[in-house]
């Protein structure tokens, strides 16, 4: 654990944040597709036209005036809506506009950063001046004039969020709400959280880069409260993608709600979970958060460049079992963790991190790639203009294996079957991680049997990836929010896998 993130808000580091039941996110709307633009509403893509290339060149020059070997300007404009339908009411509707610019200067291992939420030349030049403080009295480079670049597009939109009437959004939420309550009489409350945003980005740097795009995002969360005799369970199901409202034609809101309600009801029968080391089978999909925490974070290159991460000195070495291949791919079409280029302008691509058990790559941002003399992998990401980019995951998953998922369970004599996970966290230096089950069952004599209460599972990352002995062919994904001092949209994925010997935090001694 690091102190850094316990500063103003006490949020544990690297933890998938659970959306709280009440949530700060909420809005409401409904049925037909009508143009929804209010007159005069600024659109994210317009940020491109706010500053000329000449302006941006000037800011970069200013940033390097006193020294430095790299300077960058990042402009951002984000419009978002969030709607909350809870206890049968559209409780709140939120509209947010956030815009600003960050200027970064690097000189050797030093970084200066300043941001402003006023998009004027005066403020940009001022930010450049502040950011240049660290480079004072050093040597400087001559910036390359910026030139527009275009790259591949991994995000396709059929029905843009901009033209969707709020009523359409409300209708989607209502459908989910009704389906959740209709699922079972024990579902006493449903909470439907709809969020969408459009984020425009412009990145220009002293190496001549000038690139921009516009990223849509939808995040839809259903939570249902099941109430039984003397117990309750709050279930959760989420979907998220970078696309237009056509998402809900492909994935019906009713199905999301039913999946959630099923969990809430199933877990009302949960018995005490066992405590101690046992074999664990994790269902395909969002269970990938296990490797996101256990090995994903430790493979981010910032702690490697500092020489303190658990994988320091392990490149090209065997770190995991033969059946384990780990991939981070920010170019999977329309995925939540996908962008066309990262927040430093590096194109996205598929990066195999661990191949058949051998460590082959770290996830880098510009700084760590330079420090480690490694390739740029497209993992330099930032929550917003208020943050410096750091190495982050995108869509991270265990690659498909050969085993039949049913046989994985059948060949496990005794253990725990983890069907869904709340989230987890890791200390990337020591490699000790944990994750917490939302829905889990006992495995007895090769059969999935009774549900057990949510337990926290702990272990050391190397033990886990060395202990994976079966990998299914049923790769699937789930969306998440990853925190590392700043938030990033990610996807975690995996096929059904079995891990030998994880410590399970149950309440029942064996």
């Amino acid at each position: 654990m690091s102190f850094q993130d316990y500063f103003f808000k006490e949020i544990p580091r690297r933890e998938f944040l659970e959306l709280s039941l009440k949530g700060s996110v909420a809005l409401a709307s409904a049925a037909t597709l009508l143009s929804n633009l209010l007159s005069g509403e600024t659109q994210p893509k317009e940020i491109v036209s706010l500053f000329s290339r000449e302006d941006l060149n000037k800011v970069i020059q200013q940033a390097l005036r006193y020294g430095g070997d790299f300077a960058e300007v990042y402009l951002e404009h984000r419009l978002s809506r969030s709607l909350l339908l809870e206890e049968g009411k559209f409780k709140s509707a939120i509209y947010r506009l956030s815009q600003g610019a960050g200027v970064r200067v690097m000189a050797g291992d030093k970084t200066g950063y300043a941001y402003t939420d006023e998009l004027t030349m005066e403020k940009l030049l001022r930010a450049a001046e502040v950011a240049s403080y660290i480079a004072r009295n050093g040597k400087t480079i001559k910036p390359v004039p910026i030139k527009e670049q275009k790259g591949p597009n991994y995000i396709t939109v059929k029905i843009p969020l901009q033209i969707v009437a709020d009523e359409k959004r409300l209708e989607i939420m209502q459908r989910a709400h009704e389906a959740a309550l209709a699922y079972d009489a024990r579902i006493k409350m449903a909470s439907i959280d709809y969020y969408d945003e459009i984020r425009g980005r412009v990145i220009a740097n002293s190496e001549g880069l000038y690139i921009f795009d516009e990223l849509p995002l939808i995040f839809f969360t259903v939570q249902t409260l099941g109430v039984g005799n003397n117990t309750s369970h709050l279930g959760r199901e989420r979907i998220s993608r970078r696309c237009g409202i056509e998402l809900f034609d492909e994935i019906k809101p009713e199905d999301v709600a039913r999946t959630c309600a099923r969990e809430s009801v199933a877990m009302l029968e949960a018995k005490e979970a066992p405590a101690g080391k046992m074999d664990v089978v994790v269902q395909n999909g969002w269970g990938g958060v296990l490797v996101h925490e256990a090995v994903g974070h430790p493979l981010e290159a910032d702690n490697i460049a500092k020489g303190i991460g658990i994988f320091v000195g392990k490149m090209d070495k065997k770190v995991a079992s033969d059946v384990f291949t780990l991939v981070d791919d920010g170019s999977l079409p329309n995925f939540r963790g996908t962008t066309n280029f990262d927040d430093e302008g590096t194109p996205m691509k598929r990066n195999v991190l661990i191949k058949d058990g051998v460590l082959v790559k770290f996830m880098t941002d510009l700084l760590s790639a330079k420090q480690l003399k490694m390739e740029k992998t497209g993992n330099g990401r930032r929550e917003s203009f208020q943050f410096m980019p750091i190495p982050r995951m995108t869509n991270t998953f265990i690659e498909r294996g050969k085993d039949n998922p049913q046989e994985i369970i059948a060949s496990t004599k005794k253990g725990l079957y983890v069907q869904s996970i709340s989230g987890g966290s890791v200390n990337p230096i020591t490699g000790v991680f944990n994750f917490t089950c939302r829905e889990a069952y006992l495995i007895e004599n090769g059969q999935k049997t009774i549900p057990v209460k949510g337990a926290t599972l702990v272990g050391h990352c190397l033990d886990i990836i060395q202990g994976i002995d079966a990998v299914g062919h049923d790769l699937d994904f789930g969306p998440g929010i990853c925190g590392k001092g700043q938030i990033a949209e990610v996807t975690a994925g995996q096929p059904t896998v079995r891990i030998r010997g994880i410590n399970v935090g149950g309440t029942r001694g064996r």
Partner: protein
Amino acid sequence: MDFKDLAKQTIKKCLKKGAEAAEIYLENGRNLTIEVRNGEIERIQEAASYGAGLRIIIKGRMAFASSNDLKEKSLDEAINRAIAFAKITSADPANVLPDDPRVSPVEGLYDPLIRQVPIDEKIELLRRLEKLAMKDSRITKSGGATYREGEGEIILANSNGLLKSFQATVCGYGIEVVAEKGEQKSSGSDFRQRRFYADLPPLEEVASKAAREASEMLDPRPVKTQRAAVIFDREVAYALLGGILSALNGERVLQGASFLGKKLGQKIASDFLTLIDDGLRPKGLASKPFDGEGVATQRRIIVHKGILQGYMYNTIVAKRAGVESTGNASRNSFSSLPGIGPHNFYMEAGQAKPEDIIKATKTGFLVKEITGYGINPVNGHFSGGASGFWIENGRIAFPVKGLTIAGSADEILFGLDLVANDLDLNRIVAAPTFRVKALQIGGD
């Protein structure tokens, strides 16, 4: 820009455009972060920023819009959007804004000195902190020393005539270090923050705590799965309070999603548990004269000697519950609606010395780090990962890592049988070291 004037004008404009009630929450702040590693500056970040959140109510329907662009065009757009949204949300007679003009005077929220201390002095401070932490021969690497400061002003105005504001500062420093031995790595860190620069604790204290935390955890040994006494060090005791805090949220209580929902006036813990929410503590990190929607803050006893005295409410949820707001409207920032949250929330200290609690424990687990989600606020179920020290015959025997602890809220709260006198109020959620008679521990 005169923010108070802007706030008043914006409220007027909202009413003119059709809002029946309106509120503006304006934030204007500045922050600085410095990181030093291996004696060199690694990062300096500085920025000033502001923004406003608008809450609009029309015929009992509520909507919200926020913008960090305070130019007329953008603010107008935000107002229009909020008014449009207020046509599609559901009506609720509880959707009202506060109207009480009072504020609670709180001393020591703003230190004008912080910004006057030169940046070079702050950098030098980090260099010294890092050096001190690296002095310990078992420490092999530095994860970096960090200094942060922030100051800001909150301005709140609404159509009931409220216009309130306050200024606050915070500053802090800390360090992370690594101890290595063969293939083993162990990390330790400490970070402290205060409202006033002059109140920051001595560098030696912060450095030695981080170094000790990293080095004393080397060479852990396994223990068997068993039930035993668990001592929660004051560093982790707060982790348990998180779930309790969520369960005290008046909205969760109304929704039936709190394990404390039907326990008002009842015994929920042993006599050793007294919980206080204090918005008034002088120099408190979470103290403020009014909450996130302008209601005067208070100091409240939430649990007294094990008996639950009350929940936490903002104005809307209080009205739905038929009670008064407790001044617990919380905002993450100007861009969020007021939710419900604590101020300085703590468990009252006891009489025992922490070392006496260890002495009184024949076999047990002294927990120094907890991971996971803490107590589940819905059903009171607790399960977490834990590391710390194993206790045998009243003495610390060896470090342990990768264990789990689990139980129910009842087991923990009624099992509380010893509470130490080491409460540190300089954190937002705080508890002293305490012992729980027995919990399930998962190991080999």
